[in-house]
């Protein structure tokens, strides 16, 4: 009965004119406070969810701190940590000898074997550095991160479950989170032994890795993510990298099926 009554309404909705901005390229994000002149107040206090916890909901992009070529900064500037996750560390990442040799080799070939170049996922570290957007959907018991580049999801469970004891290794691993005051602390394990690079130069991640991310929403416009990688198989010591991510105040995620080119253009089938 409800379905029958709903039909005329559905038909009416379909007949409504389609807005010009069909992909919401410029659609304003909800809940962003405005200054007197109408511009978004990005330094305002970070919002809180209905359960009183800091609310990370929204679309986020990595910091663009890449050095620019002499003729100026082009429009798809990336983060230095995308290219080298140890950027800014005096001695770089503390590679085990085999990992150092591997990275040297991969870097010499300009990262040509980067798995993301073949449309594979980048793993949870590169989720924070790849120069595309992620959308965070937050509930009290689960946070979901939607990756535009990968067209994948990442789940962070806040329901108190433990990490799996002997997990099947995956690209994103398994993530559980808890609140430490206003900081969301996420612990992850269960990564694949091969195929996950931390950066374009090819810093590896192995099955031995344990990653801790500390998410802190500094204000409306900025989130700080402190990432500690403890992977004794590939690195001689744990290391921590702090990244900034910025709220996207207009727009939304767009479709991004990386395999389209490979399917359509002969010769682009990698390897």
């Amino acid at each position: 009965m409800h379905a029958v009554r709903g039909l005329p309404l559905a038909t009416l909705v379909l007949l409504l004119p389609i807005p010009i901005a069909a992909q919401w390229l410029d659609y304003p994000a909800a809940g962003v406070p405005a200054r007197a002149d109408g511009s978004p107040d990005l330094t305002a206090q970070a919002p809180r969810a209905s359960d009183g916890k800091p609310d990370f909901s929204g679309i986020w992009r990595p910091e663009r701190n890449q050095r620019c070529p002499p003729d100026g900064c082009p429009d798809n500037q990336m983060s230095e940590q995308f290219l080298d996750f140890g950027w800014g560390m005096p001695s770089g990442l503390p590679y085990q000898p085999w990992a150092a040799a591997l990275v040297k080799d991969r870097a010499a070939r300009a990262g040509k074997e980067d798995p993301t170049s073949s449309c594979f996922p980048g793993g949870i570290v590169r989720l924070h550095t790849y120069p595309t957007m992620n959308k965070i959907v937050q509930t009290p018991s689960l946070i979901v991160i939607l990756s535009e580049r990968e067209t994948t999801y990442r789940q962070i469970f806040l329901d108190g479950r433990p990490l799996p004891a002997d997990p099947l290794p995956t690209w994103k691993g398994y993530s559980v989170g808890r609140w430490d005051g206003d900081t969301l602390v996420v612990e992850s394990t269960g990564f694949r032994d091969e195929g996950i690079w931390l950066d374009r130069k090819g810093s590896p991640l192995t099955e031995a890795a344990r990653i801790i991310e500390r998410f802190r929403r500094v204000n409306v416009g900025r989130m700080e993510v402190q990432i500690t990688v403890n992977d004794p198989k590939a690195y001689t010591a744990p290391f921590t990298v702090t990244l900034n991510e910025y709220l996207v105040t207009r727009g939304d995620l767009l479709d991004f099926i990386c395999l389209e080119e490979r399917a359509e253009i002969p010769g682009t089938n990698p390897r």
Partner: protein
Amino acid sequence: MHTAVRRTLFASLSLLMTVGVARAHHSFAAEYDVRRPVTFSGRVTSVRWINPHVRFSLDVADPAGVVTNWQFEMGAVNGLLRRGWSRDLLKVGDTVTVDGYLAREVMHLANARVITLSNGRQMSGGTMPDPEK
């Protein structure tokens, strides 16, 4: 035919080499040679709005009138849309000029850095070379 190869004859000659494999969403340096900038003008013969790189092709005539079809690669669909591109800006039959960089291995392929549309409007191709090390 008023299309012209401006400063790139050396390029087409030197590209009579191996046909390589273009990879999907790759490092710029792995695919393109920043030391080999090129400029082409020609008639658009195809435009494909696909990820991770929008692609189009031009029929480019050399001074002797020999026409070669060149493929060009831009950035990803989402990035181009966000910087003001729309599907109707570049259409089959338009005459455009492309400034870019030659592919290292693939014949008749270049990265499109700046596209000058038939109405004179210049659009970024949405890619950038890796920074100087």
